[in-house]
């Protein structure tokens, strides 16, 4: 029993060691997002609070904490309060399986990629719960839109993951990274990387697929009735999810913690830094897309997901598996 508690204590310590940096980087990434967005539009962006405006997100968080939390009288109160908590928790628990380096991972489980996929498919519940419990038409319409959107794009993400798994032969994320030692999967599976990136945009409700919270038609979608800290939790969960999608993209396609070339000046930098560089690279791409691309119409979104991405990624599964079979490259023999 004593050993059990000591294990529990070290695990809690490790979890804190992972979560605190994730939360701080979420705050920083919001600042980066706004900065990139501003630079594309020739503005300055947040530059007042702290050096380069770095503490802007902290100031915002402080503001949210001191704002009043308003729960609408006709809302379903328990579900209304639970929704942001669910979003936030689901966004944070998926970080448990992301490998930051060799043996530098909180939970090195066999089905890591399935875990990530499962948790990201649960993410839709925070939005549906928030939209339904608000008992108001804009949140409800936003929630329905987002449920349809996330379910559609998960399908293509699942098929893309199958492509990668065919080349690896394991569901473990560390194995997926180690399989890319010679060649990052972004080179042979480049079309899949592009589709994964676009699907990740749709999955995290980022522009140009931000229809669930399209401010021109739905006020703020499922977040309309939320205020104060509860709104901030939705917001944090959303950005933690975006970071997670970037991490997933770097692990699946960009070789995770591996350095681009295995020679001296590159491999002297420790693995976690490489992963962070790759996440930042993908995130800046996310921010640039937000700044440059106009919003999709809803029928175009569905057409893209079901009629273009799904058939193409299924075709690529056939292509990848026949290539691996023909050249006898199938792993795990």
């Amino acid at each position, binding site marked *: 029993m004593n050993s059990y508690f000591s294990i529990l204590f070290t695990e809690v310590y490790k979890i804190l060691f992972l979560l605190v940096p994730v939360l701080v980087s979420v705050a920083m990434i919001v600042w980066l997002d706004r900065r990139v967005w501003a630079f594309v539009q020739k503005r300055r962006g947040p530059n007042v609070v702290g050096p380069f405006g770095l503490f802007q997100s902290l100031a915002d968080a402080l503001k949210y904490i001191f704002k009043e939390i308003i729960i609408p009288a006709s809302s379903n109160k328990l579900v209304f309060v639970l929704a942001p908590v669910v979003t936030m928790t689901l966004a944070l628990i998926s970080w448990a399986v992301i490998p930051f380096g060799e043996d530098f991972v909180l939970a090195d489980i066999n089905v890591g990629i399935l875990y990530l996929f499962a948790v990201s498919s649960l993410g*839709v519940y925070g939005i549906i*719960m928030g939209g339904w419990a608000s008992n108001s038409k804009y949140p409800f319409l936003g929630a*329905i839109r987002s*449920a349809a959107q996330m*379910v559609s794009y998960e399908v293509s993400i699942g098929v893309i993951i199958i492509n990668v798994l065919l080349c690896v032969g394991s569901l473990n994320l560390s194995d997926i990274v180690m399989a890319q030692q010679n060649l990052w999967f972004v080179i042979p599976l480049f079309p899949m990387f592009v589709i994964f990136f676009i699907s990740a945009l749709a999955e995290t409700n980022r522009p140009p697929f931000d229809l669930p919270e399209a401010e021109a038609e739905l006020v703020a979608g499922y977040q309309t009735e939320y205020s104060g800290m509860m709104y901030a939790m939705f917001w944090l969960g959303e950005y933690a999810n975006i970071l997670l999608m970037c991490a997933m993209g770097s692990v699946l396609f960009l070789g995770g913690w591996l350095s681009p070339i295995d020679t001296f000046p590159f491999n002297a930098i420790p693995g976690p830094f490489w992963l962070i560089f790759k996440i930042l690279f993908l995130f800046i791409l996310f921010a640039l897309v937000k700044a440059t691309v106009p919003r999709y119409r809803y029928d175009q979104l569905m057409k893209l997901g079901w009629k273009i991405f799904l058939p193409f990624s299924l075709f690529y599964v056939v292509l990848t598996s026949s290539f691996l079979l023909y050249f006898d490259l199938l792993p*795990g023999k």
Partner: protein
Amino acid sequence: MIAHSVFFYIFSLIAIISAVMVTVSKNTVHSVFFLILDFISISCLFIMIGAEFLGMIMLIVYVGAVAVLFLFVVMMLNVAEQKGQWFSSRWDGGTHIPIGLLVSLIIFFELIIVIGGWKYKPDLLNSLSINISNEITNTRSIGNVLYTDYILLFQISGMILLVAMIGAIVLTYRERAGVKRQSYVKQISRERDEGVDLVEAERNKGVKIDA
């Protein structure tokens, strides 16, 4: 080991309570949320016995897709409920009770058959020629039998699902008149000659465009 059984009982308790709450709770949306909680705690139980692949697939398929569709439908019904059309509290003459009894009787006998077979022929599982080894992960061992010994059943179940999906689409599809569809090819292949027309306009008279 104590911690293991403590967690087992916690998860099973949550599973049972939420299963009861699915049928007891008055709000249908709450029922679906309890159903989701039930699925999640059952997948936790799967993970605890080492069947992590099944647990994750349970989460992805049931919680991530099926329950979302459930919630979708039930939320739509709930909009109608506020107008007092569905699920009104008045007694509907008890017509649903015989059907409910029939369904629960069938389920009860199915359970008896399954558990009875298991009880009276305990070597049934061992007689299947699957060698379970601890050296390979259970994802791999499922794959080993699913795509070799049971490939036909696997393909047939896939076919059935495909047919069901196509059937649902055919049943609900309606051709509607006056729907404007976007054709990317048509849009892109539009040229200046057919799109723009230069007209000599006469003063004070204007131009009549034949549309």
